[in-house]
């Protein structure tokens, strides 16, 4: 028996796109506020979702609040449309909103992603939704959320610079891995969600909006179109992107973000499956 069967048995109907209209309006209001305050963390009433908190419940609420019958939805996890997590969420969206889904970046109107930003350039009419487990960029250096909030309000990003300085002194550069902080419009310190540094450098002045949803911590952050987004980096030490051990064994690209199939195997492949496919077929 499904939830829909249970609802029918009790004379209830499932709302369109899973969330009831009040919940969707609440999420959309938070998104509008976030768009008006680029890079700021805007609280919202995060709902219980049929995925564990921290597994994309924030991104899912954003997508379900925005999706309409005419949309085409793409969901990726680590650049891959076929992962279990991406497939489950894509199925949920498709079943509850009756929308078309796709694995092709160019065909999608809404792209929900975890850990990657599609490498194929997006258009102004597309929406990028990023799942964001940790919206607070100062969490590692300022454990007290109230103090961190005060520092954001005062535009004081010193703790993040201290963390970067320490990484540079001890390791020669940022070791933040897939969570390098960004400066939005030169003033707001934000977390870009756990995307690789390769992707962080592509966030500047994109023609489409980016909405970042953190369901567990009930925060939404937004980057309106054409927003200035710079990685936190010293003027004389630009941010270095990750390096791969070789070109993609499928498309032969040496420019894309590549991951090793099995650690130590020396076989590198593009992380963005659709971009890799696109290169092979064109």
């Amino acid at each position, binding site marked *: 028996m499904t939830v829909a069967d249970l609802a029918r048995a009790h004379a209830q109907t499932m709302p369109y796109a899973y969330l009831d209209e009040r919940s969707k309006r609440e999420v959309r209001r938070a998104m509008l506020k976030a768009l008006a305050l680029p890079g700021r963390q805007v609280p919202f009433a995060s709902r219980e979702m049929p995925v564990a908190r921290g597994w994309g419940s924030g991104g899912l609420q954003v997508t379900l609040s925005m999706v309409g019958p005419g949309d085409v939805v793409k969901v990726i996890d680590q650049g891959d449309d076929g992962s279990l997590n991406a497939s489950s969420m894509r199925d949920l969206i498709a079943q509850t909103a009756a929308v078309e889904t796709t694995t092709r970046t160019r065909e999608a109107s809404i792209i929900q992603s975890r850990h990657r930003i599609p490498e194929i350039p997006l258009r102004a009419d597309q929406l990028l939704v990023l799942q964001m487990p940790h919206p607070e960029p100062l969490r590692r250096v300022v454990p007290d959320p109230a103090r961190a909030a*005060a520092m954001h309000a*005062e535009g*004081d990003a*010193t703790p993040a*610079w*201290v963390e970067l*300085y*320490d990484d*540079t*002194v*001890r390791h020669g550069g940022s070791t933040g891995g897939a969570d390098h902080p960004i400066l939005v419009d030169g003033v707001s310190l934000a977390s870009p969600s756990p995307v690789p540094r390769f992707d962080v450098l592509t966030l500047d002045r994109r023609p489409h909006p980016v909405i970042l949803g953190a369901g567990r911590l009930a925060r939404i952050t937004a980057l309106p179109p054409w927003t200035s987004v710079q990685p936190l980096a*010293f*003027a*004389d*030490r630009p941010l270095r992107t990750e390096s791969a051990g070789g070109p993609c064994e499928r498309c032969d690209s040496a420019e894309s973000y590549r991951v090793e199939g099995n650690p130590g195997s020396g076989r590198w492949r593009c992380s963005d499956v659709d971009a890799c496919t696109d290169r092979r077929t064109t």
Partner: protein
Amino acid sequence: MSLPTPVVQAPRLAPPPALLRVEGLRRLFGPGCASCLTSTGDAAGTNRCPACGTIVALPGIDLEVGPGEVLGIVGESGSGKSTLLRSLALEQPVDGGRAELEGVGELFALEGRARRDVRTRALTIVHQDPFSAGLRSQLAAETNVAERLLARGDRRFEPLSMEAGGMLGRMGVHAGRHADPLGTFSGGMRQRVQLARALIRRPQLLLLDEPTTGLDPSVQATVLSLIARSIDRTLAGTVVVTHDLGVVRLLADRTIVMHHGEIVEEGTTDQILEDPVHPHTQSLVASRLP
């Protein structure tokens, strides 16, 4: 008959303006009542109010520190000297009074970022425990020092590293250890790092809270020598709180003695140590180890 020697009146020099002027500094721990101030203090022999139990840590302290002057504060445990220093360091709220720092203004009126800015730029405190002063054990020694420069807004790595590393070098921290986490340093080395951090922005007012307590005598001597040299170099006004009369003898130009929250004696350090007047000061001086 000899003529009387003419009396030459020496020109009276106006005293230099105080770097720090504190008036009526009050700090209570408890609800407070009308009799708190009259029933506590040196004369009453206690700083606990018998009516309401409030601890009157500081009933209304007045003091001044001149530019380049080192003021020592001594007294037994619980006399209020550390409360006084932490109030001046803006580490805790006060219940009354003013503290004017030259070029900054009224310290106790500062809030938010302005308060934090003053605490990294104009005044700085060196604690007995470096981690009480905000140093972090997991960060490299150089990072702990450079944090003060990053707070100033410097955003070029190489000049920052040169300045922070240079200060650590002057404090005797070998260059090969600048990138090591502070948690791996000995107590004496941590104090050197703390001192480097405290002095990197040439503060107007340096506050030292038992800076050598807990260190072995040879390390104490080295750290005290560093402090004395640094004070000469920066010409900062300095307030040093200590139990150790040897520390004030070495560092302080002037010394005040506190008892039950009040200043019971004040004078040049030699005067206090060689010719104490107040019975409590006499007791402190007499209890010195040979």
